[in-house]
């Protein structure tokens, strides 16, 4: 068992039904080397203040629930360790650019609407039944989209994206990376339906390639690359539609 030390965790607290404005409360949390920021928050909830509200589930960077701002950086609290911040105090806040439901819990509705808008599922060219058998892919075909398919919808990229912060009409990094993921899948024929989202001002053109989304992504999805590759597709679509106005979709 490693030695126990004490770190100060400063948490943003906000209960819209009671508080006029968000405020901060500081807690003294004993921790050991293997404790994550999430475990620090759980200690607060279990021992110091049961009213502290935050989302979490898997504790192993798979579910994407526990994203928050730690010292103004968007991170997964399960993946960051208290020992790396000690002896400084840490400040934990809800993800930026989203409305607060309570304390560290944000309202994801805006993102969920955007996710839905990119048709984030396979659209087969012809309707298939189980009798058609498995839809096989070569390793190369899998490689085309596998990187983008790692997204866990944790929304760290939205909290990092200054464009989304300036104008949340922007479809945003995760949704556009997932759009690229389905477009790149050999089993999918839905590119045409997604092109309208790509081509819009709030689609790929809302991005100015700041690149923070790719830096903060805990699953190395690289949304900035996905978006900027689709700028090329959108540019081709913009000019080539004049050459072939009928039947060209992607």
């Amino acid at each position, binding site marked *: 068992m490693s030695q126990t030390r004490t770190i100060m965790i400063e948490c943003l607290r906000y209960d819209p039904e009671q508080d006029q404005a968000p405020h901060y409360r500081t807690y003294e949390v004993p921790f050991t080397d293997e404790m994550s920021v999430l475990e620090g928050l759980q200690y607060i909830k279990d021992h110091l203040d049961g009213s502290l509200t935050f989302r979490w589930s898997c504790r192993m960077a798979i579910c994407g629930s526990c994203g928050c701002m730690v010292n103004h950086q968007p991170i997964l609290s399960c993946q960051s360790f208290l020992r790396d911040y000690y002896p400084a105090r840490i400040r934990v806040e809800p993800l930026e650019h989203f409305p607060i439901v309570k304390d560290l819990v944000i309202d994801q509705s805006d993102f969920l609407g955007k996710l839905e808008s990119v048709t984030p599922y396979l659209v087969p060219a012809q309707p298939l039944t189980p009798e058609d058998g498995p839809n096989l892919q070569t390793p190369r075909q899998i490689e085309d989209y596998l990187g983008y398919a790692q997204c866990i919808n944790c929304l760290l990229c939205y909290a990092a994206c200054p464009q989304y912060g300036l104008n949340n009409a922007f479809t945003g990094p995760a949704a556009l990376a997932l759009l690229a993921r389905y477009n790149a899948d050999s089993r999918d024929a839905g590119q045409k339906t997604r092109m309208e989202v790509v*081509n*819009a*001002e709030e689609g790929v*053109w809302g991005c100015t390639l700041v690149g923070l989304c790719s830096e903060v992504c805990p699953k190395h999805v690289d949304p900035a690359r996905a978006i900027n590759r689709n700028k090329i597709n959108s540019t081709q679509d913009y*000019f080539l539609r004049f050459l072939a106005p009928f039947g060209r979709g992607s």
Partner: protein
Amino acid sequence: MRTRSHEPIVWSLFGAGGVFAALLGTMLVLIIGILVPMGLGFGPDAMHYDSLRSLFGHPLPALGLAVVISLFLFHGAHRIYHTLHDLGIPASKRMMLACYGSAAAGSGVALLLAGMLVVF
């Protein structure tokens, strides 16, 4: 129904300008800034007015020069436009006109001067 962005027009000019800036720009800095002044690989007359004047008196090099200058200008205009947006200055028609308008005006002047080099 979402409206289609017209940004592909300026983005392709920006992209072309970026490629030229990366490839030609560095080469020009190397030649004009380092190699010629140090007398490496170029004769003493390489940058003299007369030799450059006769080179750009031909239509193709003159047009090439104007096109490169124009793409550099559009590249810069696009960057400035978006950097202002990044800095929180909201994108407006007036700002767009100022950025791309000056690039277009500069391109016009470059083309005019290139024409004059050929004609006179």
